């Protein structure tokens, strides 16, 4: 087993031990905090699939999280509480949105791709504000968690927490399989030289679109989980700042490593929490760290923890 996978297992194990620590130190808030961390880890993981492996800088990824969350919120609003409806619906809705957005955006590249994904993200944000029936600017409260019957009671925070961790672990495992599959290798090859892959007869557009849709669907799942944690959805989920934060998590943790984004989400949200306790001006510290990462440490935390060789391989050309 390679070191990336060991690091991934250790990370998941660490997250799984949080409720124990919360109990030992009598700090029940930690479970809420880390449930949030793990959910954002899933979202960052989904972004890494297209950012790290396909080189697609999506600056509007928060829209899928928002769509997933709003799907749960809107279904609950209309009295549909079944989790077996909520989660598939959230995934399908965000996948369809990703299909549509991807089909249009992927015809552009470079900075135009960044801008067009940003435009779609903002459209989602303003759409959520404009639909008054579902709260508009005020957001939408959800009465209770998705209903999976008595087997899986999501209103029990411990049950919910471990569900999130299991999903995260499963997605990591699937992610590792995916990026090392023929599909994953083709994606990475496209990132290095798309023209050559095209010339070799690979339908590169379709490969990128497939990755984009998978990424959107997973991010939608994260959104559905977030809606269940906070029981509240609001347009700010889709604000461009959120999309920026997701990018930061991926980069800070280490691109194209899958486990990196998970670490990135942990670092980002923990820094936010810890710094916020120390100073009201914590975003400045965060900003400084971000600058330092770009100027001096592009490989991210995972890159530092793992062999440097691996990271060099993953570095894109131009």
């Amino acid at each position, binding site marked *: 087993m390679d070191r990336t996978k060991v690091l991934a297992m250790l990370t998941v194990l660490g997250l799984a031990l949080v409720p124990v620590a919360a109990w030992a130190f009598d700090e029940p808030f930690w479970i809420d905090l880390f449930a949030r961390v793990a959910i954002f880890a899933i979202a960052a993981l989904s972004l890494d699939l297209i*950012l790290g492996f396909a080189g697609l*800088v999506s*600056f509007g990824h928060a829209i899928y999280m928002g769509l997933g969350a709003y799907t749960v919120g809107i279904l609950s609003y209309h009295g549909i509480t079944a989790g077996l409806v909520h989660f598939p619906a959230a995934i399908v809705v965000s996948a369809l949105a990703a299909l549509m957005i991807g089909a*249009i955006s992927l*015809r*552009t590249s*470079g*900075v*135009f791709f*960044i*801008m*067009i994904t*940003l*435009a*779609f993200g*903002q*459209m989602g944000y*303003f*759409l959520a*504000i*404009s*639909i*008054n029936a579902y709260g*508009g600017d005020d957001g939408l409260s959800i009465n209770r968690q998705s209903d999976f019957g008595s087997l899986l009671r999501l209103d029990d925070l411990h049950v919910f927490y471990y569900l999130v961790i299991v999903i995260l672990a499963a997605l990591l495992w699937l992610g590792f399989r995916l990026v090392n599959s023929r599909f994953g290798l083709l994606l990475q090859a496209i990132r290095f030289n798309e023209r050559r892959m095209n010339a070799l007869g690979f339908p590169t557009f379709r490969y990128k679109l497939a990755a984009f849709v998978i990424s959107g669907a997973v991010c939608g799942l994260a959104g559905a989980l977030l809606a269940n944690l906070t029981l509240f959805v609001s347009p700010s989920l889709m604000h*461009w*700042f959120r999309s*920026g934060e997701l*990018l*930061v998590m991926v*980069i800070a943790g280490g691109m194209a490593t899958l486990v990196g984004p998970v670490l990135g989400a942990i670092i980002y949200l923990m820094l936010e929490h810890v710094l916020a306790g120390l100073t*009201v*001006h914590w*975003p*400045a510290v*965060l*900003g*400084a*760290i*971000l*600058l330092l*990462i*770009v*100027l001096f440490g*592009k490989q991210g935390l995972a890159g530092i923890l793992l062999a440097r060789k691996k990271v060099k391989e993953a570095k*894109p050309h*131009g």
Partner: protein
Amino acid sequence: MSAGTVLLVEQSLNGLQFGIMLFLMAAGLTLVFGVMNVVNLAHGSLYMVGAYLCASVFAASGSFLLGVSTGIAGATLVGILFEVTVFRRIYDGDHLDHVLATFGLTLICNEVVRMIWGPTALFAAVPQGLAGQVQLMPGLSYPAYRLAIIVVGLMVAGLLYVLVNRTRLGMVIRASASNRTMAAALGVNDVVLYTIVFGLGAALAGLSGLMAAPVFAVTPGMGDNVLILSFVVVVIGGIGSVRGAFLAALLIGFVDTFGRAFLRPLLASLFAGNVADNAAPAMASLLIYALMAVVLFFRPQGLFPPRTR
């Protein structure tokens, strides 16, 4: 003069005024984009710096002109500081580097402003001489301050046109925007050029911010939303094209204002109930981004790309 005509003229002026403010923001952004190929999210911070400096100096000294000069000078200095300390190190990086580094800069700037001026909003005053209205036509008196924004903006746009198209510096800028490597090979000193272009962009952003200060509230992070709109302008206009930025800014200004003003009656005639009341303003914002996506899809180079290319 019929009431309908007056309304149309007034809303056009509103659209023009908003468009002009966007243009001043976008002009700097598109120059930096075109010449250095850098995505600068921190451009909104320069807008904020201009607004804060002008509003507080004006409030303290009572002199609007002093406020304006401080605002522009301050934004220019901060811009040059950015260029020298951060941007020089990331010109060679990819766009992702730019997004992250300037996102970080934005966070820092917002907090520094919060440290100095506090988190609550400042409400900038309009200078005494511009507080009234100007009678433009029978039945239409337009706020003098907004008229001043239009006039100043048009003048700056004219100066910028002359600068870019009629001076040696402009020629160098155009050459660099067209082909950076070739321009450098032909002896263009890009270190100095980049600093000048960046400073110029910063000055324009500061001017835009300080003029916007009395129209909006002066708050930490005030530049962030204008920034995103300016990106829309830059992309629609064609990256690197000042002329494109001007036309696209006016387009966005008009779409936004007319969307807010006339989308509601339009929707009201289509849908029952208060759908229109609630949805119209947000729909207008949505329209702008939809426009950007359409332009990017059909003409990724923008509607008015730089002619030199």
